[in-house]
């Protein structure tokens, strides 16, 4: 195992992590403010990717495609919040899980009906193709570096939004005491719609960014959704900081875990045997990490005691 490989996998892990953060930020905000588990968050990711692919095919512009992913996902989010989600805020988690599971079925089959079963492709624009040489001589794809940069910028912007702006104050107030903030004259239902739309837009952006690396297809949202849940549960539900740390932890575990496990096992097993065992357990590592965190800290790393 070369040091270069480890370095590359660390970068891959960070790239995967910031992507998960874009998904997890919306989920954790919605849970923190409205107390809602939204399984349909993965559908918004898918909608963002499809919107980006459709716009890119029509106009050829990657920037327009990204803008479309943000706009369409935010609009879909606001619409769903208005029609369905707001009826679920006062329900128990069981009803929320089921209703948003139903939304997944509707969104997935609806998208399949509109776009067909074949995957769409979204191309990386020419100016982001190719590799850059990093200090130390590692060649790394420019596009992946761009994703890391966008993810970090979004994280900073989100921090500023929540910590410094008026809407941020309201969001934090809504987390603490929703009756009080409503009594102070803030239109709570508009605030909820806004929070949901922000989360949806971030999910849509993540879908579009990943869609350019993988194919854009129905069902692409669910695996990411489950990982995003793992992230917010590890970080503590409702905590943006927790979501960021959790996302990086999960991203690094996913990309580094298998090679570290292989190296560890190779030290005392035959290569072939070590490889097959490492293969078997590396896909489980993230879930083992989550179970361990929850057993030790039942409400996540930065969660409030529930």
């Amino acid at each position, binding site marked *: 195992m070369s040091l270069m490989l480890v370095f590359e996998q660390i970068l891959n892990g960070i790239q995967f992590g910031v992507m998960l953060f874009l998904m997890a930020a919306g989920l954790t905000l919605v*849970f923190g403010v409205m107390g809602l*588990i939204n399984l349909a968050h993965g559908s918004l990711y898918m909608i963002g990717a499809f919107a980006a692919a459709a716009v890119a095919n029509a106009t050829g512009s990657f920037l327009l495609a990204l803008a479309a992913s943000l706009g369409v996902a935010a609009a879909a989010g606001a619409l769903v919040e208005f029609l*369905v989600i707001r*009826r679920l805020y006062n*329900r128990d*988690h*069981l*009803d929320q*899980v*089921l*209703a948003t*599971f*139903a*939304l*997944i*079925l*509707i969104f*997935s*089959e*609806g998208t*399949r*009906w509109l776009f067909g079963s074949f995957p769409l492709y979204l191309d990386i624009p020419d100016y982001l193709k190719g590799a850059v040489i990093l200090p130390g001589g590692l060649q790394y794809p420019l596009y992946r570096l761009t994703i890391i940069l966008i993810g970090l910028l979004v994280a900073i912007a989100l921090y500023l939004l929540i910590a410094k702006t008026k809407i941020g104050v309201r969001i934090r107030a809504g987390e603490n005491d929703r009756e009080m903030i409503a009594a102070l004259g803030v239109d709570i239902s508009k605030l909820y719609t806004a929070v949901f739309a922000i989360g949806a837009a971030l999910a849509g952006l993540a879908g579009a960014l990943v869609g350019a690396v993988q194919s854009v297809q129905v069902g692409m949202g*669910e695996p990411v959704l*489950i990982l995003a*849940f*793992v992230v917010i*549960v590890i970080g503590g*539900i409702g905590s943006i900081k927790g979501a960021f740390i959790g996302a990086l932890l999960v991203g690094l575990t996913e990309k580094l875990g298998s090679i570290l496990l292989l190296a560890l096992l190779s030290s005392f097993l035959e290569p072939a045997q070590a490889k*097959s065992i490492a*293969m*078997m357990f590396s*896909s*489980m590592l993230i*879930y*083992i990490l*989550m*179970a361990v965190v*929850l*057993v030790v800290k*039942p*409400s*996540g790393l930065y969660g409030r005691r*529930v």
Partner: protein
Amino acid sequence: MSRERQINIALVIVLLTVPLWAWIKDEPFTLTLCTRMAILALAGVGLNIALGLGGLVSFGHAVFFGLGGYTMGILASHAQTYSPLMESPFLIEGTKSMPIIWLIATAVSALVAFLIGALSLRTSGVYFIMITLAFGQMFYYFAISWPAYGGEDGLSIYVRNGFPGLNTLDPVQYMVLTYALLGIALWFFSRLANSSFGLTLNAARQSPGRVQAVGIRPFKVQLFAIVISAAITGLAGALFADLNRFVSPTMFSWQTSGEIMIFVILGGVGRLFGPVAGAALFVFLEHQLGGLSEFWHIYLGLILLGVVLFARGGIVGTLAESGLKRG
């Protein structure tokens, strides 16, 4: 007679008439659908103990469904190739006998549920939902990447396993067997719900603090509920695998957990016949809508959404309380 009991009796009559009619008309496909319904309902009855009586929202019951399925698959595949599971330290051979498979499937599910439950019950609320989901994903990925028993492709069994005195390959006989097991499970559920254990479990759901105050640890009661619940779902998994003569990692997937949950909630959480009504409607819709449109999941989604938003209490709950004032 209470309204709910009338509904239950009507449901039983319908679910017995349909296969009888299919048997007379000689329509084995309908019999297979009824068998499928009974097995899925059995899985739901299992979940209903944890979810309905205990209020424990497990999003990982596919673990037990899958374990039941793989128990059957592994034992039967060894039996059909005449190779023992292991030879040292003692000999374990495969088997094609249903009663033995059922016993092992329920025992394995119960054991795993004990471990998962003991860890998961440290958390509550959303964290409980998510940790059970995480255990489900662990088993799913393990099944995919474990090459010994088919990995991602799953495992096929050539001939359905045997039950003493029956020809299980005959659709009617296998159906009667699953109906009988479902009947026993329902009887067990109703006894359990009214036993002192069931009442304690119910109390621990509504007010864990008070249960603790009278000297009962909610943890113990809830853990026991998860174990029983898992054993029944595991049995259903073994039957389901035998129905299809095939097991695959899909049985462990989170969609499977979601579907088992759907049966319970569509029918009515905590209601004796809830899972039966839910599974019957699910299989009916799958068959009817699946024939109408390849996008039948949209309609399933809309119906599900309608039930959650407007018919709280599911089919049985809504019918039983219509016309009555809600308390």
